[in-house]
């Protein structure tokens, strides 16, 4: 089946303008609602994904403000315990499952295909499906919350509090089913990314020429693939316990409540690195661009990513130090938790070395990276503190831990993310964000964040437990709490300004050139925003710094068809071209499949038979999805 068929048409026969025209007609998403609903362009879906995740960030932030309002004074009666418990549960669940993980994957959905030089993500329809599933899961949680049936069991939903006996109603089921939604979508995206990175890299991009952000997403995707099944088993078991009276977590019938904790944290700990590692990749990218040199120690950085990924599976018990497990075993987990400081430190030191040797340019994205260094190291060090068993028995489940994880989540992941938005905004929208406003945003968020969360360490050491809707006036906590609540408004102001800047810039920001920062990774080799087919001709890579030599012409490959969506499959290690492969066209079926799955999953909160009946429309949608339509993409 090799060789040149006489009927197809290749890019070699056209001049640039004609080629763009041809490719556009094959790759473009048709206009209108139908086109939007059936699009499988990774850029359109990626932008959608990112925007949705930021909407969830804003909503979760509103909940945080409500909590701070309630906690500003002792024994406040502004929010009752029932609502407060829903609020912190939805805040945590939303931030972890609907914001942090998806937003990182969304950035990858947009950027990875561009950075490896291909025309679309692997399994584009699956990508569309995963977005719809994610959206449905988010709507499920938030609609439930608005209707006052939001989950109220904490973001890790410990049994038996979430079990059939102590969580009446459907709240806990909604939590567990929301997990299923985000799980399916996260797993799907992880598979797409792994395959895109393995098989769709531009010719010549051997493993040692993969950009660090792409490496970080590759490791992250493996973490997703290996960690998410644990929560899948856990949440399914919880639903079964609640719906059909299994006893997996019921100690009275041979089940075990700590089993839940083991399963949850076997997923939950890798989860935090699923959030953190992409941020590491963003930091590396931004550091390289704004110090005008490659990141120091490429190999060491890649090894650190992999080491973190491997170690991540050996630490889960550090969340259970006071659950009453054998002390000797716990000491092992102290050691492994501390060991993760080594790859983390290695990365910090490599970035420092890069800054040392480079010429820093203090643009907004780089400011966020500096803010990241300052706050993440605090959060990492408090992580090392709580990794010590005796230390943790004092501060576990107090505001000290709340401070730790916001330092690593916000300082360690959200700061780089905001930097990344400023950095890649031109590529996402074709427009620049405002540098002046950006500095204000950074200043407000950085100051607001530290003023809000640093005092929480002290509160924790003074004995204030987390997840309390109020506290007694006689406890020595009131003044700090008031201070924290006031500081939170500075933080909120910073985020507000950020959102305003995003919306304003997207509409009327200065137009961006294809490579406004003078960066060296492939996404900057195409226009801002990229055309539907990303690259008119696929780039050929000869070094780690794909665009470092701006003076010469970009080497490209030719010979792909222009009468169907075609991209290049290359070998895993060396990225040697192996085949020209078609890429799926737009389709409405992923949406139908997602709707059918959504209906099934929500219905199954009420009766197990939903799974049986629901599988029929799901199967029909899947058949519609995969059944060939006789279009050129279906041929070989």
């Amino acid at each position, binding site marked *: 089946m090799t060789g040149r068929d006489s009927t197809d048409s290749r890019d070699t026969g056209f001049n640039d303008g004609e080629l763009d025209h041809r490719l556009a007609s094959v790759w473009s998403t048709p206009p209108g609602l139908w086109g939007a609903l059936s699009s499988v362009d990774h850029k359109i879906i990626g932008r959608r994904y990112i925007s949705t995740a930021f909407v969830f960030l804003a909503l979760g932030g509103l909940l945080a403000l409500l909590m701070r309002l309630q906690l500003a004074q002792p024994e406040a009666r502004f929010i*009752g*315990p*029932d609502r407060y*418990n829903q609020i912190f549960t939805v805040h945590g669940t939303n931030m972890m499952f609907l914001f942090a993980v998806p937003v990182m994957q969304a950035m990858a959905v947009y950027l990875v295909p561009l950075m490896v030089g291909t025309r679309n993500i692997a399994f584009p329809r699956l990508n569309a499906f995963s977005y719809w599933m994610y959206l449905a899961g988010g709507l499920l949680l938030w609609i439930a919350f608005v209707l006052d049936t939001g989950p109220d069991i*904490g973001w890790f939903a*410990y049994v*038996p*509090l979430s079990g059939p*006996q*102590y969580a009446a109603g459907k709240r806990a089921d909604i939590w567990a089913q929301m997990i299923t939604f985000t799980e399916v979508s996260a797993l799907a995206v992880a598979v797409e990314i792994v395959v895109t990175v393995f098989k769709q890299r531009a010719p010549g991009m051997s493993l040692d020429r993969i950009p660090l952000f792409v490496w970080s997403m590759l490791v992250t995707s493996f973490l997703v693939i290996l960690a998410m099944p644990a929560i899948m088993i856990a949440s399914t078991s919880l639903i079964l316990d609640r719906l059909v009276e299994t006893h997996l977590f019921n*100690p*009275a019938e041979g089940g*075990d*409540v700590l089993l839940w904790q083991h399963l949850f944290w076997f997923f939950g700990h890798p989860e935090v690195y699923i959030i953190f590692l992409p941020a590491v990749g963003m930091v590396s990218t931004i550091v390289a661009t704004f110090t005008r040199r490659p990141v*120091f*120690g490429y190999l060491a950085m890649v090894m650190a990513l992999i080491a973190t990924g491997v170690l991540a599976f050996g630490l889960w018990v550090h969340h259970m130090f*006071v*659950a*009453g497990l054998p*002390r000797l075993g716990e*000491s092992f987990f*102290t050691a492994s938790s*501390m*060991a993760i*400081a080594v790859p983390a*430190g*290695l990365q*910090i*030191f490599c970035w*420092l*070395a890069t*800054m*040392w*040797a*480079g010429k*820093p340019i203090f643009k907004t994205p780089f400011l966020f990276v*500096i803010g990241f*260094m*300052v706050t993440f*190291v*605090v959060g990492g*060090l408090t992580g*090392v*503190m709580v990794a*010590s*068993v*005796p*230390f943790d*028995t*004092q501060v*576990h*489940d107090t505001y000290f831990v709340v401070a730790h994880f916001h330092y690593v989540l916000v300082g360690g992941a959200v700061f780089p993310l905001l930097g990344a938005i400023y950095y890649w905004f031109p590529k996402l929208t074709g427009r620049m964000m405002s540098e002046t406003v950006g500095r204000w945003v950074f200043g407000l968020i950085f100051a607001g964040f530290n003023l809000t969360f640093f005092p929480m360490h002290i509160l924790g*050491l003074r*004995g204030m*437990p*987390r*997840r309390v*809707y109020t*506290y*007694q006036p006689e406890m020595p906590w009131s003044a700090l709490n008031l201070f924290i609540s006031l500081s939170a408004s500075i933080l909120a102001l910073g985020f507000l300004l950020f959102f305003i800047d995003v919306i304003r810039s997207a509409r009327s920001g200065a137009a961006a050139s294809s490579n406004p920062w003078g960066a060296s990774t492939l996404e900057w080799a195409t226009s801002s925003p990229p055309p539907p087919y990303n690259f008119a001709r696929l780039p050929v890579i000869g070094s780690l710094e794909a665009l470092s030599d701006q003076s010469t012409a970009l080497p490209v490959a030719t010979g792909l068809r222009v009468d169907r969506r075609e991209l290049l499959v290359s070998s895993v290690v060396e990225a040697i071209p192996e085949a020209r492969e078609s890429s799926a066209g737009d389709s409405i079926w992923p949406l139908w499949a997602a709707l059918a799955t959504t209906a099934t999953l929500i219905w199954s909160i009420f009766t197990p038979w939903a799974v049986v009946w629901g599988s029929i429309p799901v199967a029909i949608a899947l058949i519609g999805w995969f059944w060939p339509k006789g279009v050129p993409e279906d041929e070989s």
Partner: protein
Amino acid sequence: LDPHGAPAIHMEHLIIGIVAICTVIWVVVMVMLGVALLRGPRAAADTAKSEAWLAMTVVAAVAATVIIIAGLTIASFYTTRDIGVPKSDALTITVRGQQWWWQVFYAGADATPGFQTANEIHIPIGTDVHLRLESADVIHSFWVPSLAGKQDLVPGRSNSMLLRAEKPGVYRGQCAEFCGLQHSHMAIMVVAEAPADYDRWAASQRGDATMPADPDAAAGRGAFLAKPCAACHTIRGTAANGTTGPDLTHIGSRLTIAAGLAETTRGSLAAWIADPQTLKPGNNMPMVPLTSAELQNISAYMESLK
């Protein structure tokens, strides 16, 4: 943290040590960051030499990291040993977590019967006390910061911890594991006293409830037994033997009511009995309709149960 017990003191030392070390690390990293960013114009030459020098520095820093974390791991291992589970002959008290209060059992020995109390533990100072931790419903966590670290109360399991106070005093603790609606109002008081005081207290707790002398209180006793109160609460020496709520035999002697919600006074008792759901929304005690006279009498009775 205001440590007054051996385990808490060991921890305090460790905590101060770790925090100090980490603060130093942070300062060093920040200085490096500042210098890296702000140092003057870079010499373009001798890049090869400076790359090698940078590599050396990074390796040295990683090596330092390894050494420090090894040290921290060992330190916390030894501290863990020091706060370990007490010897078996120590005084043993069983604490059962309930949504949202603490049930406490003092075991009897030979001729002396055991007794039950709630939301308050008395211990003799200078002695190791062994706590057996259990739960009646969901997971709770026992934590009195000044005396020791925390330990969960897990349904279906029994955990142990060592409690020890060096100085007399009242140490407040609070449930640390989110356990539902009133997790915020689930405090416990640990009263540490001289051994003689402790023995006196234990002896009086062991006894049945006294017949109130005061007529109001006596009327309250009648009302208590006639109303649904007795279905949920036990008062030893009376017919009341419910087990849903705390044992009230010596409620008047306790420092607080409703797991630290308020000090035990006749007024707070009355307020609580009149409307528990407003004071502690969602708790498992319903409002029992009473006339104001009944309410007064019952509060007086409760207060008299020393």
